[in-house]
């Protein structure tokens, strides 16, 4: 069966969508990504859609699902490279990609994930300290 490859880059997963996905392929990707986040403990998912020319409500829902499932497992999702025509169309369609961060390109997306990772680590530490204070 045809699949979209998922790359592991340090604590993040990277997916580049090269074609306009048909439904089954998109659903397979959703499943594969969620499984891989849970198996690898990845802290971020980066989805490059710069080659995607159409995002309809079906595709939008899949991106939203990936983000909300990943968040449950402590990973943030960034969609990068959305074509301007696609962005304009999504607004009129009425679709808001809830829980999905966006960035201009892969590099900026990585930066964003790194900042979030550091932010989250600090938060974790603070929580731990609070815990320790309480234990004292």
């Amino acid at each position, binding site marked *: 069966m045809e699949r979209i490859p998922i790359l592991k880059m340090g604590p993040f997963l990277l997916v580049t969508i090269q074609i306009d996905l048909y439904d089954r392929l998109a659903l397979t990707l959703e499943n594969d990504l969620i499984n891989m986040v849970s198996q690898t403990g990845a802290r971020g998912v980066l989805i490059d859609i710069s080659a995607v020319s159409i995002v*309809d409500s079906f595709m939008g829902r899949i991106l939203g699902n990936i983000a909300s499932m990943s968040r449950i497992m402590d990973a943030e999702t960034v969609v990068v490279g959305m074509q301007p025509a696609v962005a304009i169309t999504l607004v*009129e*369609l009425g679709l808001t990609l809830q829980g999905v961060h966006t960035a201009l390109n892969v590099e900026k997306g990585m930066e964003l994930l790194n900042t979030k990772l550091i932010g989250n680590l600090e938060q974790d530490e603070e929580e731990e300290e609070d815990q320790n204070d309480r234990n004292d």
Partner: protein
Amino acid sequence: MEIVREQDVVPFRNRVREFSTRIGMSLVNQTKLITAASELVRNMLKYASGGKVILEIISHNAKTGVRLTFKDEGPGIADIALAMRDGFSTGRSLGLGLPGAKRLVNEFDLKSNPGEGTTVTVIHWKHGR
């Protein structure tokens, strides 16, 4: 063009792109029309197990555009006003297909009778107005 399975969606979208390119429609307008078409063809597959789409290039008052007619013989829509509402779905999806498609194209017409099927006609002009 016959639409009977999920794999027909991407080739159909490519046909719509061909038609819009042929009349010199801008990329943003093409994207709007194709996205609307994608929503309508998905509905046809999901709620009526498929149907037919007629693609045409039309001219009216010195305007050129693409007209798409989606015709199915599915269960039809009992309450059209309700189906056109943002967020209404009987398929546990986002409920943005019909209202969103209407916003994306210049002209939108939906005719449906329960038990007789649904016909949706959309027109998008070359310059998006």
